[in-house]
């Protein structure tokens, strides 16, 4: 089938002054931060909160809210990109680098992927190289304030170089694996890696 090469009458006013920080097919949502979640926003008590690393590691480890805050802090300043085509530019998050946490747990030989899981039961899969080397965080601050619950507070995963569904809200831990295992959206047709610069939105992209 021949697909029309362009849409009659469409000039694309979104392109004028397009910010080079925007990956293809994305637009700048400005000050807004759309909330997109498939689940009911959960209630999570800090007293029972934990973050756990399990699976293919030397020392499976679980941190309480206080324990994870005693680790060396790390922050991210930059952009985030949602697969639903909005991007948010120049934002900042604070928390702890996943490198620190994985360093304590010790990645065992043969590990290749992680499956992140949340306090609400959501999962998402990531290749190990995408969550190591200063590319992933567990964050609890947004713009210097506590991360609101609708955006994943008390703490969420942050993997800003991939589409934002990989940055699981209400993060509870990661399971280190020697294979790739599709998470929630990935089982529902979304891409296993999700690089916004390659427009890896859906399986097969």
């Amino acid at each position: 089938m021949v697909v029309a090469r362009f849409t009659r009458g469409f000039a694309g006013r979104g392109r004028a002054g397009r910010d080079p920080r925007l990956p293809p097919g994305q637009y700048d949502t400005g000050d807004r931060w759309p909330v997109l979640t498939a689940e009911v926003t959960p209630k999570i008590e800090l007293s029972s909160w934990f973050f756990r690393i399990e699976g293919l590691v030397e020392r499976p480890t679980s941190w309480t809210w206080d324990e994870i805050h005693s680790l060396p802090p790390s922050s991210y300043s930059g952009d985030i990109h949602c697969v639903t085509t909005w991007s948010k530019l120049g934002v900042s998050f604070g928390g702890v680098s996943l490198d620190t946490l994985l360093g304590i747990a010790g990645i065992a030989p043969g590990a290749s992927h992680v499956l992140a899981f949340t306090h609400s039961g959501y999962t998402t899969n990531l290749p190990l190289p995408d969550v190591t080397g200063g590319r992933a965080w567990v964050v609890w601050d947004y713009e210097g304030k506590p991360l609101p619950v609708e955006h994943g507070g008390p703490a969420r995963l942050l993997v800003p170089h991939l589409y934002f569904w990989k940055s699981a809200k209400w993060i509870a831990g990661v399971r280190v694996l020697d294979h790739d295992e599709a998470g929630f959206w990935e089982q529902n047709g979304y891409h296993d890696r999700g690089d916004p610069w390659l427009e890896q939105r859906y399986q097969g992209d």
Partner: protein
Amino acid sequence: MIDPAVVRGPWQSATVTGIRRETARAKTFRLELGAPRRHLAGQHYVVRLTAPDGYRASRSYSVASAPDDSGTIELTVERLEGGEVSSFLHDEVVLGDELEVRGPIGGYFVWEATSPAVLVGGGSGIVPLMAMLRLARQKGRSDLVHLVVSVRTPEDLYYRDELEGPETTVVYSRAAPAGSARPPGRLGLGDLPENCVLAETAYVCGSSGFADAASRLLVELGVATGRIRVERFGPSG
């Protein structure tokens, strides 16, 4: 998880064969698909616009029509101020135009009319739920479903000629039609069907604030959170 990996097929061309106004801000577009694919009620399509120089913009829109063998789908689009794609669809698209689409997408917020469901929509959040209501009616299984939709005023109600029935409830938050027994007000416990705790799944669709409020009401009525599936509409242009 009902149907894994439900993004079927690449981009395809679709012809606009019908345009119907729903409200002052919403239109329904009937699209004839070049390569028809059967969708599930609740799924969405991506519409992609391409300018002559290759610039592209795409947005997702829920399918409003029930799955059928017509080779067509209906998308209801709310015109958002400053919405690059929605305003183009509203202001420029005419019958016979070709649009590039991809779908159907989504395997979670779907219902196949095989188990009891309660559907709660706010404003334009009715669209995927309408596909579910239409499917239930088409299959003669209206007994399985109850749709509650909340709109600000009667003028904001989509599909108003088709909605009425024992399996639907319309709630007006700002202004109700003359003679309404219920005064205008936000969705409350009394607006949800008493038997919603028997529903196997509750589908909630609307703005984030509406979705949270509606989910809380369902939980108060005894619906387990794991049975509530939510689709939130952010500003998506």
